[in-house]
Each structure stands twice: as C-alpha cells, then as structure tokens.
C-alpha cells in the first residue's frame, strides 16, 4: 500500500518587507486547506520549525542585494523542484532597486552610522537574474488569491491561470469607469500587469503600477499621453520608479525622461 506523500513547501526570504509572505498568512481559511494538503517545511513568518529539503515547491520573496544572498539562492534552487518568485522585489528588484540608479556607497555613507559594517551589492536584482525561475508572481504585495492559485496549479500540475494583460481589462470587467478618460487622472493601468483587480481606479485614483509591466507595454505612448495631461518629466521619472523601477520597460522609460 502506498501512502500519498504530502508535497513539501518552503518559503524563502531575501531583501523584502515580508508583505508577500504575509499574504500567505492572510489566506486564513485557505491556508488551513493548504496546510492540510502540503507540508510547510520552511516558513519563518509562520513557524520556527524547519524540515530539510529537497522541496517540491519553493516560494521566494525578496531581491538579491548581498553577496551572501547571491550564493544562498543558488543553494535553494538546487533543493527545489519548482521555484516560484513572489512579489515585486523577487521579480523586479523591488523598491530597493532605486539604489541601482545611483551609487550605493553614497546612500550607505548617509544612512548608516558605521558604514564599514555594511556588505552590500551595487544593485538590487531580481531572482531570475541569478537562477532559473519556474514562474514569477507579480505584485507589491502579491494578491493572496493569485498566490493560492499558483500553489494550486503547481500542486495539480497545471498552468496557473494568471493573466499577463493590462490592468485596463480588470477595470473593464469590473465596470469601473476609466479615470484617465473621465477625470484626466494619469494612470499606469494600460502598461501594468493585471492581478490586483484594479483596486486604485475603483477608488478614483490612477494605477501606480504595483504589478509591474504588462506583457507588451507601450510605455512611450502612455508617457506622451501623460504629458498631454500636464505631467512634467520629473514626475514621469518618479511614476515609473516605483516598486518595479528595475523592470526593464519601466527602467528604460524612466531613464528616457531624465
């Protein structure tokens, strides 16, 4: 008689705020179901207990910012059958990638009383710059329903139903009136990856691009429209330099307005 082995799930933290890991804890009732179906082998936000690898599914939060982390992620990859990055830090370098546009030494000397203790890399980079990644889940923070969907899909050996189209599609499915057209509010929705459910436009605000670039972002055309709406170049730079500043299409767009 064979006993079905519970898949082992590990959650790993790199440079991040822990918000995406907390999305897993926010799953509440769903988390109980998850816990029934899988063995949580490593999840520091939830428990100190650690079960040794290899792991069936590793969820990785955070970006690579130190030499030690650059080595650690390689070891984690070796122990993981599937590795999924969660959140803007892990998929795009996060807000801390703002350092990439300047010299990190200048920041260190200003921020820390004893800069000599700081051992950091020049750039904050996404996990996929260091190892191969099986799936990247976007968002700052990630959407907990999408997280459950991704865990689900990997455990059931199917493709995650995560759409890479624009946030506009979500607004339209919700019936939300376009804030850019009806109110002249600059919105990053047309170039931003769907996933949050288009929250900001439903509260009369433009999209901040928390989910990073959509599949085929035409940032140049959107910037032209923002300028028509009266947005100045320095504000365009700031708009594209949010949580996904180092994602290629957003990085290039912000640099083009400097």
């Amino acid at each position, binding site marked *: 008689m064979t006993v079905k082995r519970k898949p082992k799930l590990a959650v790993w933290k790199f440079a991040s705020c822990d918000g995406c890991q907390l999305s897993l804890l926010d799953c509440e009732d*769903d988390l109980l*179901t*998850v816990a*029934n*179906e899988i063995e949580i082998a490593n999840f520091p936000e939830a428990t100190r207990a650690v079960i040794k690898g290899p792991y069936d599914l590793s969820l990785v939060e955070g970006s690579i910012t130190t030499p030690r982390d650059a080595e650690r992620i390689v070891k984690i990859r070796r122990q993981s059958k599937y590795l999924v990055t969660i959140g803007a830090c892990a998929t795009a370098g996060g807000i801390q990638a703002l350092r990439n546009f300047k010299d990190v030494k200048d920041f260190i000397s200003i921020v820390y009383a004893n800069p000599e203790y700081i051992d950091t890399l020049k750039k904050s980079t996404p996990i996929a710059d260091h190892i191969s990644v099986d799936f990247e889940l976007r968002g700052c923070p990630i959407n907990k329903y999408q997280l*459950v*969907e991704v*865990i*689900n*899909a990997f*455990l*059931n050996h*199917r493709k995650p*139903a995560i*759409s*890479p*189209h*624009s946030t*506009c*599609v979500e607004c*339209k*499915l*919700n*019936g*939300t*009136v*376009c804030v*850019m*057209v*009806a*109110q*002249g509010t600059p*919105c990053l*929705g*047309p*170039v931003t990856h769907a996933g949050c459910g288009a929250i900001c436009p439903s509260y*009369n605000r433009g999209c901040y691009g928390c989910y990073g670039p*959509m*599949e*085929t972002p*035409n940032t*140049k*055309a*959107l910037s*032209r*429209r923002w300028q028509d709406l009266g947005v100045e170049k320095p504000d365009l730079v700031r708009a594209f330099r949010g949580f996904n500043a180092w994602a290629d299409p957003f990085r290039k767009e912000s640099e083009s307005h400097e």
Partner: protein
Amino acid sequence: MEKNETRPCTLSAEKEIVAVARKDFPALFDSLWANGFRILGPTLGEGAIVYDELHGVDDLPSGWTDEQDGATYRLKKRSDEALFGYNVGPHAWKKFLFPPKLRLWRAEASNNGLNIIEEKQTEQKFALIGVKACELKAILIQDQVFLGGEYADPIYQNRRKDALLIAVNCTQAGKTCFCVSMNAGPRVESGFDLCLTEVLAEDAHYFIVEIGSEQGAGIMANVPHSNQTQGAEKAIQAIATNTAQQMGRVMDTENIQALLQDNFEHSRWDDVASRCLTCANCTMACPTCFCSTVEDVTDITGDHAERWRQWDSCFTMDFTYMNHGHARASAKSRYRQWMTHKLSTWFDQFGTSGCVGCGRCITWCPVAIDITEEVSAIRANQTGGKPASSSL
C-alpha cells in the same frame, strides 16, 4: 423572440404612437416592475453616465449630459431636466446580455469520477431602458453572433429572450459619434418593444412613445398616455435630422471591405502600432466585440473544479497563443486584426459591418486612437499589400 400572447393589450392596432407626460413617466417603471422586469438603464456613477439597475425614475441622469472627444469624457450639467439628454457612455448593454465574468459549471470529484454541477442561470427578465439607435443595432449584431448559425449561446439566449428593449431616439450627438456613416442611427427604426422620443418644449416635457411589439403595448396599457399625437412623426424626424447634423466624426465606408484587405501592408499599421497601448480598452468598450476565454480553476485539494468564462480581447497575447507561439505577436498585427475584422471581414462572417459608429473606441482609448482617422489615412494613400501569412 417569443411573445407572450396572453398579455393584456387594450391598445388598438392603429394606435402605434402615444404620448406620455413627464409627470406620468414613473408609471412606466411601475408597469415594468408589475410585469416582473428588472429595470436596467442609465444613471450617474463614477463621473459618467453608466448602465446599472434603476430603482426609480430619480435614478435617471436628469439634467446631465456629457462632452466627449478622443480619450476624453466629461459630465456636464444641462440647462434643462432632460432624462435622456446624453451620448453613449463607458458601458455597453452587452454587460447584461453577455456578462463580463460568469461561472459556467462546477465539478466535484467522486468515487464514480466527476460530478458536473450545472450553473443556474438568471431567471430574471431585463428591461433595458434608454437603448440608443447605434446600441440597438449593436444588440442585433450580437444576436447574430450568439444566436445565429447552428449553435446558439444558451446564456445569451436565456438573457435575451425575455429582454424588453426600450429604445430612445438621440436628441444630440457627441464629438466621437458617427452612426450616420455606419447607417446605424440616429433614429431608431426597428427591433424595439418601445421607442421613446423625449420632447422638451418651452412649457412642456413629454415623451412620444412608438410601440414596436405586443409586449411593449402590454406595458403601455398601464401607463397613462394620450393618443393625441398629430405631428409626432414630424417631431421625431426633426429631432433625428438635427442629431444627424451633429455627428462629430465621419467614416467613408465606400468599398471599405476591399480597402482594408488590399492595404494589408500599409505603413499606417506601423504608425498606429507605435501609438497603440494594446491595453484592450477598445474591445471591452465596443458594443459588438464578443470574444471570451474560458478558464478552469481547481481548489487546493484537486477535488473541486470550476469553469469560468470572461471577456477576452484580440489585443491580449494569450488570445492567440498556440503550441507554436503567438499568432499575432506584434501590436501592428493585433490592431490590424481588430480593425479589419470590425470593418471588413465581419461582412464575410456575419453579412454586416461590426461597427455601429457609437464612438466608444475613440472616447475610451486612453491615447485617443481614432478608427475613423485610421480609415481616412489608409484611404488617402493606398500603398497596398495583400494579406500574407508570413507578415503576421
């Protein structure tokens, strides 16, 4: 459409046009509710005139209108108390007949395999009030898509069969309107149960009501009305003529099928691709666009599955993703597909144009791409290029 033959009808056949005073207008709502209809129509919401459920005449956008242009929509106060004095807004009626997101069925794993649990579809009858001529034409086009041919869409069929269409003749046109070019308005010609024309004279506010079906007649039987309608036809015509003269856009449709197909490699497609966000707003706002996708989801145990249908768009990459990759990888090929389908190959598929000139794709494109301007540009300088599969 099935008609309810048992519905009481006290109006005689020759009284096809009646007049209803503004003060008696709430009786129309009462009559609709008494006949079991849920009333869906225009109302103010999120800085626009949207379509939603109405709970009374007061929900209508009395005294409000809008100003539109490419990528711009602004609400404005009117100088009168017109109930239907606006242009078409962000929503299309398809949201009720072809819902944006819908569960099709559920399934549970059991010892015998899989139990399919069918989804109960809505049993409520809709009365759509305020359907403009271009929108009515769009509904008739979607009827062909969903109900024509060998296979009917049961969800659309169920929602459409009992839907009561209360049309309204447009009393004004916006800057992005071009229904005249598409032969889709501004006067409502047929396909309605009731058609209202709102008349605001110096000291009178009333509706001319054309009765288009027995069901419509049944509804009107309970609404106080006058049969003194001499000159009504002339009044409707005058309003239609006035509205037709206000069209903000024009599209020359002469030989348009061939025009687009013979200019498949026109440089304008590259030009529009440089401006297009591929965000899919035009297709979502369009009242005739009908594409959808189905998604299967499972719960974590794998014992429970659901199939959902939701609107999709030829502008998304997943839409044409197949084993070999994306069939339309470039923005150029996707915009060209959308516009050529709408204005040209729709004729081959359904025998009509897929465009009704409502102007939504112009107003709601965040970067103001204008379908009428794109047609003009191609027409002005025909550089040719036949369809070639390699250029996809």
